[in-house]
């Protein structure tokens, strides 16, 4: 009460400074008096500030560790009893790319629930962050994540462009980044043992490398369909451009001729010019690994362009969804994408199948996943949790997580049975099953599921 008196007496007279001091005094007074009212939040995870500190001290040579992985070289995260292990999800969740990132984001939450506690500690995903499918968005979000030094790992990103900027930040902070949606070769390797341009140690992904998909499509077109000419169109997105390029390169490597390689803009609707440009080479197949709505227009307008009447249309996973397949103009089209015949694949850590997942998803969100990579997202999340489990030990009721151990576990991953198939991580973080399939669309509203399973070609490196 003494301080209260101070406030009323002198706060009045002296200038702004004393007011400020009094304000602080008052606040702390208040804070102490209301200290007991916090129990409402007891069941919830603690605020970041209340969470434990990271010790940069060398790993203890202790025995209570059991045999967790890691040498402590990247520091240890300590999680005190009652606190939760902090991981984050960084996906494209708003705007038109939201349809792609949102299922991956939600998969992480489902996976964390399925997994349960790690050594008696809860796992907290926090609020989802948005990578806005861009490098600057990814960087800004990554900065928010690394500001919290308790975060062990991050699930994301959806878009390769975001990973380019986010991965260095996150991996430099000792965290790992595991993506279920990136496919750019630059983030991992060219599959010939050379690190990609944007490869960071501590970056992993369960999605396939574009080079596989490009090769798969090329082999299908050249080998299965027996075509020697093909053209490709992308829409200026790093992903679609990369995939179209991968296809073109692989197709030429197979011995075919790429008669046209061009691009549209995402907002274009009138595709006659670009299709005419392609038609000048009279390709037997036209590959456009792009998104909606531009994909609708290409499929719709292509048969009307002189020179493309009989060209076979091919697309990729960006269009392999429940909105596109029922469109009448897409009947008979071929689509490459990750093998979606998850069938009875069981994630070895949670014991869940794809059917379990979609049921849970529908229960929670009242819809079916709107993109192809949800299972990759699920496996990515489970991998992170497994890695934390493998790299942690309990000491005096505190969970110690060795950051290097998390990486060691992931780099050493072999023969892991995930929802998407068997996962093996290579030295550059490519962990995906790399199984690519080509399906043919049966057509019609009711045949989406059947079309997804109508595999006409499958490829495994």
């Amino acid at each position, binding site marked *: 009460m003494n301080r209260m008196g101070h406030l009323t007496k002198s706060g009045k007279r002296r200038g702004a400074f004393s007011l400020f001091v009094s304000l602080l005094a008052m606040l702390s007074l208040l*804070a102490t008096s209301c200290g007991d009212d916090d129990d409402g939040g007891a069941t919830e995870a603690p605020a970041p500030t209340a969470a434990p500190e990271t010790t940069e001290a060398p790993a203890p040579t202790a025995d209570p560790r059991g045999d967790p992985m890691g040498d402590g070289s990247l520091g240890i995260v300590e999680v005190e009893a009652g606190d939760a292990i902090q991981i984050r999800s960084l996906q494209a969740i708003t705007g038109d790319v939201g349809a792609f990132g949102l299922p991956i984001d939600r998969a992480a939450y489902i996976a964390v629930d399925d997994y349960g506690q790690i050594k008696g500690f809860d796992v907290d995903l926090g609020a989802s962050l948005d990578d806005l499918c861009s490098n600057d968005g990814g960087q800004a979000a990554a900065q928010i994540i690394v500001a919290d030094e308790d975060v062990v790992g991050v699930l994301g990103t959806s878009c390769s*462009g975001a990973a380019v900027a986010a991965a260095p*930040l996150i991996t430099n902070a000792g965290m790992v980044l595991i993506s279920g949606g990136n496919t750019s070769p630059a983030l991992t390797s060219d599959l010939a043992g050379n690190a990609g341009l944007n490869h960071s140690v501590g970056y992993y992904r369960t999605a396939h490398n574009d080079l596989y998909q490009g090769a798969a499509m090329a082999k299908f077109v050249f080998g299965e369909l027996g075509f020697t000419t093909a053209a490709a169109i992308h829409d200026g997105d790093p992903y679609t451009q990369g995939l179209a390029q991968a296809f073109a390169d692989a197709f030429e490597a197979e011995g075919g001729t790429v008669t046209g390689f061009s691009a549209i803009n995402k907002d274009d609707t009138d595709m006659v010019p670009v299709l005419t440009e392609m038609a000048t080479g009279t390709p037997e197949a036209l590959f456009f690994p792009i998104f909606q709505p531009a994909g609708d227009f290409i499929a719709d307008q292509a048969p009307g362009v002189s020179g493309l009447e009989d060209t076979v249309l091919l697309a990729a996973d960006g269009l392999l969804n429940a909105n596109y397949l029922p469109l009448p103009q897409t009947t008979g089209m071929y689509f490459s994408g990750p093998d979606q015949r998850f069938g009875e694949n069981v994630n070895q850590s949670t014991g869940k199948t794809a059917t379990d997942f979609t049921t849970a998803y529908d229960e929670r969100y009242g819809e079916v996943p709107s993109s192809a990579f949800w299972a990759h997202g699920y496996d990515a999340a489970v991998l992170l949790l497994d890695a934390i489990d493998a790299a942690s030990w309990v000491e005096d009721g505190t969970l110690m997580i060795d950051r290097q151990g998390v990486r060691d576990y992931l780099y050493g991953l072999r023969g892991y049975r995930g929802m998407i198939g068997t996962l093996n991580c290579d030295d550059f973080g490519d962990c995906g099953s790399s199984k690519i399939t080509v399906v043919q669309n049966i057509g019609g509203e009711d045949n989406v599921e059947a079309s997804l399973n109508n595999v006409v070609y499958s490829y495994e490196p």
Partner: protein
Amino acid sequence: MNTTLPPTTGPQPEAPRAAPRPAFTHDWRRIARMGSVAAFGQVFIALSNMPVRLDERLIVKPVLSLGYLVLLILPFAAGYRQGHQIKRENMPVCAPGPNEVVGGFLCGLITGGGLSLLAVLVTHFDLREPLVNWSPVLLDLLSFSNEMWFAVVIWLAIGAGMGAAGGVLRLLGPKSHRVVVTMALAVAGAAVLESLVVDVAEGLGLEPLTDRLYAPRGGVAWPSALGLAAVSGLLAVLGRGRFRQARVRHAQMEGAQRTRANLGLIIATAAVLIVLPLFAGKLTNELLANVGLFVLLALGLNVVVGLAGILDLGYVAFFAVGSYTAAVLTAATSPKIAPEMPWLVALIVVVIITGLVGLFIGAPVIRMRGDYLAIVTLGFGEIIRLLFLSDWLSGWFGGSQGITKIPGAGIFGITEVSGTDPRRVFYLVLAFCVVAIYISWRLERSRLGRAWMAVREDETVAEAMGINTVNVKLLAFVVGAVLGSFSGAIFAAKVGSVFPASFLILVSIVILVVVIFGGMGNIIGVIAGSAVLIGVLGGPKQPGLLAEFSEFKLLIYGALLIWMMLARPEGLIPSVRRTRELRQQEMAQDAWLRGQVDDDDAGGADGPRPAVQP
């Protein structure tokens, strides 16, 4: 009659107050109109999913979330607004009384009725196609997880209550008014600035304080909210409007005194900006760096739009050219250009190239009529982005794969500024902001600055007065371009990669909103505009403090732009000159009334100097 007319700025002369109006004589049509407009707004907000999304953001835990707050504000505002009396000459202003409260009540009732009706409709019809947010979740929110009838009753009640509260606010004297507003602002401010406050408090070792202030997982804990309100209320009482007094005093200062006061303010601000980042964590610094980048861009656009009056909608082109030039010159991975330059050396080239691009774009457009110019610059902005994106030039700029692995900005070998350390980025941005501020400040007060203003005022006359308008405008274009390119060069070093997707038209528009919102032609205003908009709402690809708003950011930007133009075209912090321009008629009239306009029959101007300057 015209309700869209803004209240005039500045202190209102104290009009004689007549007795309160009777409680039940109202302009019923006005109440009905305002109520239904507000109701329409309510329904729009509800259907936009804003309340549901923002419900995650707690203001006062567990009582109030931002989601509900946005629903409460409209009936309150409608209630308050309807109590506004249109002032006419020689018409006494009635003292507020029960009339205002009853009017507010009715207004709020109608407003709340909108949501009640919505609750009924949502229950009985399924419009999920096409309205995506027409869902049980919405009903759940509206009915506080109860039956539909509960929603109907509760929203009528809430609406009426908030409306009446708005009316009551009219009853309060200026003092209580101030106290209430201060309290509300304090709590809302504490909630909005949460992550910032926590971050800085951590740096200062004040976590115990913030741990008490904020509930776990966000929001001001309700006891703290009460405390905060009490403290701020008390401060408002104790302060007795000193802040306003100080402001008025400052406005009246002149000459050396004013310079001194300004210098003091500048030094204080500089000290805060230099010291604060040292204590703040990555979060705050990242935010500050982002705000700083936009301040730089906005300062550049301000020269073009604010000073020279050229509406450049393709301003992002210069940001892009700055980024790409810096990237191509400094990144080892960039195609074509082999020798990697240090960032500072590259910066010189960046300035030269952007200047040239400014000339190249400026020359064809500069003679065009203002609005043609706007569209053509927009076209140029798009062309430039498309060229960076194109496969054709991908050998130079990487096409859609962009340029990655851009090294940080090395400063004389002393330090390297890259995205991993936002604090350094902020200091670098700060340094460039100071340069930009200096440039715009000096130029504004030079021969060139006067010529810009003349061109903005009347191009034909400026030309007739011997000003080469083409050159002068072109120079404004180039200066703006160069300032924008600074931001681009820092951006490239900060993010470490450039992709064409960072340079959409959207960015131009956001920068324009920032400039307009802050106050065209005014450096302080532009800075304040960036801080508020980019800092709180976020930039095109940058999250702000209220990350929950990210989905609605652009909608709010659009609404803000319209509202600003209608209600306060001079911006948040207007430049004196700009205010004059936009309110010329009003001010001329005022000046006349105050006897400031010379009456030629009465002789020259050597009479006593009028007390107040416009």
